[in-house]
């Protein structure tokens, strides 16, 4: 097991290395080159020449790359062009908000998705099943930000059930330890703050959860359908097992294995979905910040974000693989 983990971690190195090369080349392929990217709209020929000399962009490529890699390894992702602050600092400030939102979205997607997929599969071919299939397809085809619009318009603007923007109401003065507001509220016993944070999270988390929810529901459905028509389920029934045991120990345990992998794959999707959702709800996370960076061509931010996401994505999938190895005896004992 430990060997597996170490091997997977070792495989991460070339991936990140390759990614850094790609990003390095990407900045250099931008129209106007890295200097223009850094200067943004203030790129006069003189300023460009100055920057090129200052940052060594006139040096040979491999030399530049070594320097760039050195900076990355020190956690130096450059400076944001819009806020003029280090990219790393901007990230660490905003990251907890996005993590909180993403966790909620995953929870919703997993719980509702598995339940929906399971119910549909057990009534395979019925009206409920067909409705669930169409619903899950609709879930994939409604653009995330459009769904966010609708949720915001109906439940926040028209009905006023939920706040339409932000993470916390102005009149709440809460103490923060982890910067995961709901958790903080529970830890400090400030229940009104926790509740306020939950209200702020409901709509963006729902919008963000839509696509992964649909994907997990479909995966669960097809997996349950396959397993429930498998020989070993039939044999489990034939040997006289009680129905709850057939359902829980045989059917569900086997059917949910492939679903676990799917959940890991959703993380990348969630992080890019956060870019759109956070923007609609003016949610102060990393995604909204990135959306601004994209429209204002803030390349150091974009570059850092892609590296960060790739790292998170790789780590989450590693965790999923490892837990998969623990649940599935075929991988554990060989």
């Amino acid at each position, binding site marked *: 097991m430990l060997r597996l983990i170490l091997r997977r971690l070792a495989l991460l190195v*070339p*991936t990140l290395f*390759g*990614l850094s090369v*790609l990003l390095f080349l*990407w900045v250099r392929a*931008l*129209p106007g080159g890295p200097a223009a990217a850094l200067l943004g709209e203030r790129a006069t020929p003189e300023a460009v020449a100055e920057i090129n000399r200052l940052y060594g962009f006139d040096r040979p490529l491999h030399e530049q790359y070594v320097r760039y890699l050195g900076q990355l390894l020190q956690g130096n992702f450059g400076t944001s062009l819009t806020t003029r602050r280090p990219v790393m600092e901007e990230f660490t400030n905003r990251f907890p908000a996005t993590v909180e939102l993403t966790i909620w979205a995953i929870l919703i997607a997993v719980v509702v998705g598995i339940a929906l997929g399971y119910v549909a599969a*057990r009534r*395979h*071919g019925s009206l409920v099943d*067909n409705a669930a*299939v*169409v619903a899950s*397809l*609709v879930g*994939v*085809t*409604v*653009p*995330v*930000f*459009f769904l966010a*619009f*609708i949720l*915001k*318009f109906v439940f926040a*603007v028209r009905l006023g059930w939920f706040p339409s923007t932000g993470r916390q109401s102005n009149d709440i003065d809460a103490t923060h330890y982890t910067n995961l507001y709901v958790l903080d509220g529970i830890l400090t016993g400030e229940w009104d703050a926790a509740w306020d944070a939950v209200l702020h999270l409901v709509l963006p988390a729902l919008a963000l959860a839509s696509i992964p929810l649909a994907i997990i529901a479909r995966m669960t459905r097809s997996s349950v*359908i396959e397993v*429930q*028509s*498998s020989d070993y*389920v*039939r044999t489990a*029934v034939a040997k006289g097992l009680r*129905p709850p045991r*057939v*359902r829980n120990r045989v*059917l569900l345990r086997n059917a949910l294995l492939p679903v676990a992998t799917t959940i890991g794959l959703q993380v*990348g*999707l969630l*992080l*890019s*979905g956060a*870019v*759109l959702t956070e*923007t*609609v709800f003016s949610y102060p996370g990393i995604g909204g910040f990135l*959306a601004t960076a*994209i*429209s204002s*061509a803030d*390349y150091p931010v*974009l570059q850092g*974000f*892609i590296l960060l*996401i*790739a790292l998170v*994505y*790789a780590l989450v999938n590693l965790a999923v693989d490892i837990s998969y190895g623990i649940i599935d005896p075929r991988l554990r004992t060989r």
Partner: protein
Amino acid sequence: MTATPPPAEPVVDAAPPPEPGGSDTRPGSKRDGQSLWRQAFRRMRTSPIAILGAVIVLAFVLVALLAPWLAPYPAQATPGRDLIRPTMIPGPSAEFPLGLDRFGSDVLSQLIWGARASLVIGVVSTLLGLAGGVAVGLLAGAFGGWVDTAVMRFVDLMLAIPSLLLAVSIAAIAGQNNTSIIIAIGVVQIPIFARLLRGSMLAQRKEDYVLAARSLGLTRGTVTMSHVLPNSLGPVIVQATLVLATAVIEAAALSFLGLGGGRPTEAEWGRMLTGAQAELSIAPRLALLPGLCISITALGFTLLGESLREALDPRMRRRR
């Protein structure tokens, strides 16, 4: 809920009609000489999901092609320019069936012309992704060895970046124009198609008919091109149908993020939706209508793709 999960399909032995035991001949039927693809289409004709998808797609394509005749006003025209007030955008009327937008354009015309833009973006970017992906996948799948390893490592690298961000990065290089969006969406699909085709080719390669073809003395290239590739294309074509949906959605997302340039009055669903955000409280229909168009079009392609996938499923094939 029933206690026993009964197998969904009859076990092979029970699958009617019974195999003609012993006689080894089967009376000829009407279905003689139907290729796999034709059989798949025959199966799709009986599926309500496939029909719904086909109807949506057909309607979309017709509207896009016939836009100049269907749209009441030319693209980018602003016939109701003078009726717009800062706090009021006129709703549906006899003259403008779906109302006006904040520039005074007729929303119905904009939506019709937008279908055309979406069709172009969808088709061109899908073709780009398909062509690139098939080329890359073929390179990996046909040569194997270190070429395969190198190509697939690169593909995995690309897939480690969420597609929206990859598209954003590519669009940033390609510049602020409409073509850059098409390129971005298309290029993002290349690694996906490549991986799919390669996997499919590896699976086909293990089949006995490939061994048989090699035993006939066909060269590696001929075996690949006339047996392995055609049999591997099923999942790729399914994916292409699904990508048509993704392309429409991603194009909207990119223009929502402010990429792609173009004039704000240009008839493109994503841009219409983005622009409507400011007027959400006074004219929600401006967001609702293009959003619905995007969703329904994407749904049409997805329904079609999913039912095609089901119809081509090898598990269904063997059952005849």
